[in-house]
C-alpha cells in the first residue's frame, strides 16, 4: 500500500530541503550585500525585491529555508532524544519517581513553548545553537509524556514477560521490543514536532529572538515585511507561503508515517 499523504508530505518537505541545500552552495546575492535599492519591488535584478537595507529577499528566503530546517531538525533530534530517554526512564522508574516525573512533565507541557524558549535565549543570547537548545528543551516534555505511556503499555505486554522468561535482559527488551513497538507512535509525534519547531523558530525570529545575521529567517522576514507593509505589501507573501507549505508538508508526512510505520495497519487495512 502506498500512502498518498506520505508522498505529498515528502514532495513538500523535499522542495524546501532542495531550496535549503541550494542555498548552502549558491544564492543570488551575498546575504550581507546591501547594494540593491531600498524596498525594490520584484524585478529581473531581484526576483522578490529587496528589503529596507537593500538586501536581496530571494537570498534571505533561501537561507531562511536552511535555518528553519536545521533548527527544526536539530530541535527534534535534541528534544526527541531527551524526551525518549526521559520517557523510558519514567516507564521503568519505581512508582514514586514515575509519579513525580509525570507531574513535572505535565507542568512543563502547560508552560508555553515560546515563553520557555525565550527564557533560554534570554539566558544564552541568540544564536543558531541557542535556538535549537531552546526549542529542543521545550519539546522534551511533549515527546516524553506520550513516550512514557507507550513504554508502560509495551512493558505490560505478555510478549515482554515471554521475552524475559526466555532470558532477555532489560537492555535487550528495550532495544528488541520497547523501541520497535513505540516507534510508530514516536515517529508520528516527532514529525508533528518538526512542524511545531519550525513554527517556534519563526515565532522567535518574529519576536527578534532568532539567530543573528547573516542567518536569515522567515520569521524575521515576516517582521520586516509587516513593518513596511504599506510600501511593499507583497513582501509578506513568499516567506509566509513557504512557512505554511513546510508545516503542511510535515503534517502530511506525519499522517503518512502513521499509515506506513505500523505493519499491523499495513497488513490489514
Amino acid at each position, binding site marked *: 500500500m502506498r500512502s498518498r499523504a506520505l508522498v505529498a508530505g515528502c514532495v513538500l518537505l523535499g522542495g524546501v530541503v532542495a531550496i535549503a541545500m541550494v542555498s548552502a552552495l549558491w544564492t543570488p546575492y551575498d546575504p550581507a550585500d546591501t547594494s540593491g535599492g531600498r524596498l525594490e519591488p520584484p524585478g529581473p535584478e531581484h526576483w522578490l525585491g529587496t528589503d529596507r537595507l537593500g538586501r536581496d529577499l530571494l537570498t534571505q528566503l533561501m537561507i531562511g529555508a536552511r535555518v528553519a530546517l536545521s533548527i527544526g531538525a536539530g530541535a527534534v533530534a535534541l528534544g526527541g532524544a531527551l524526551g525518549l530517554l526521559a520517557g523510558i526512564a519514567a516507564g521503568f522508574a519505581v512508582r514514586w519517581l514515575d509519579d513525580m516525573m509525570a507531574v513535572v512533565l505535565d507542568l512543563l507541557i502547560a508552560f508555553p513553548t515560546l515563553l520557555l524558549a525565550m527564557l533560554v535565549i534570554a539566558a544564552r543570547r541568540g544564536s543558531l545553537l541557542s535556538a535549537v537548545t531552546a526549542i529542543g528543551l521545550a519539546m522534551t516534555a511533549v515527546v516524553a509524556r506520550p513516550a512514557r505511556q507507550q513504554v508502560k503499555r509495551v512493558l505490560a505486554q505478555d*510478549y515482554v514477560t*515471554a521475552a*524475559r522468561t*526466555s*532470558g532477555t535482559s532489560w537492555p535487550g527488551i528495550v532495544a*528488541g*521490543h520497547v523501541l520497535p*513497538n513505540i516507534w510508530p507512535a514516536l515517529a508520528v509525534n516527532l514529525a508533528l514536532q518538526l512542524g511545531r519547531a519550525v513554527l517556534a523558530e519563526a515565532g522567535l525570529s518574529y519576536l527578534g529572538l532568532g539567530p543573528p545575521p547573516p542567518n536569515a529567517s522567515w520569521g524575521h522576514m515576516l517582521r520586516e515585511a509587516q513593518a513596511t507593509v504599506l510600501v511593499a505589501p507583497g513582501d509578506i507573501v513568499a516567506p509566509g507561503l513557504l512557512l505554511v507549505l513546510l508545516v503542511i508538508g510535515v503534517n502530511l508526512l506525519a499522517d503518512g508515517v502513521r499509515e506506513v510505520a505500523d505493519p499491523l495497519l499495513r497488513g490489514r487495512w
Partner: protein
Amino acid sequence: MSLLEAGNLTVRTADGRELLRDLSFRLARGDRLGLIGESGAGKSLTVLAIVGLLPAGMTASGRVLLDGEPILGAPEWVLNTVRGRRVAVVFQDPLAALDPLMRVGAQVAEPLRRHRGLRGAAARRAALEALTEVRLGDPERIARSYPHEISGGQRQRVAMAMALACEPSFLIADEPTAALDGTVQAEMLALLERLVAARGMGLLFVGHDLAVVARVSRRILVLERGRAVEEGEVGDVLRAPSHPHTRDLVSAARRLHGALERMLP
C-alpha cells in the same frame, strides 16, 4: 536428584496477602507434573515465581532449586542464563506472547542468539530447524510472517519452537492449549508429549481442565486458593480423590465425559 524442587514456596502481595502458601513439590528429570486448579488458584503465579518474574510488588519466599542450585532470589544476571536456556515457558495466549512487530523467524532466533551465540545464517538455519521440529508446514513462510498473519495453532507451535530452541532441560507450559479449539488442542498436546519424551525434558504442565492435565502428566498437584490440597499419581488421584476439592474436579470432569458418552449410540 530432582531437577526442580520447590519448598514452602509462598508468594505475598505488597500489602501482605498470601496468594500462594507453602507450596512444595519435586520434579525429576524426564518426569511430568500436572498443576491443576480453578482459575485464580495461583497456578500462573507459581510459574512466575519459579522463573523470578512475579508482578511488581509481589514477593516470594521459600526455596526453588534447579539441579540443586537455588534460583529463588538469585541475581538477575544468573536468572537470565537460566531462563530460556535451562527452563523455558510456554504461555496460554500465544498471540499476546509474541511481539506483534517482529517477524516470527526473528523471534525464534532471539533466544538462539542470546544463549547459543548464533548469528546471521546460522541463527536463521537454527530457527528454521526449530520451526520444523514443531511440525510447522512451510517453515520458511512462517518465519517471514508477522504473528497476526498466522493461525492460533501455528502461533502456539511458534511459541513452543521458541521455548524449545535452546534445548532446555525443563519446560513449563502454562495452559498452552486453553486458547485453542478442540482438534488443534489435541494436536498440540500430542506434539508436546512427543517432544518432551524425545528429549527427556522435565515438564510442569499447568491447566484447569482435568482431562487435559491428566492426559500429559504422570503425577498431579491440585491447587486450591493458593494451597496444595492433594498430590499423587494421576491414576490414584482419579480413582480415589481424597480432598473434597479434588473430588469436585473429578466428578465434574466425569459428568462432562458421561454426558458425551450418553450422546453416542
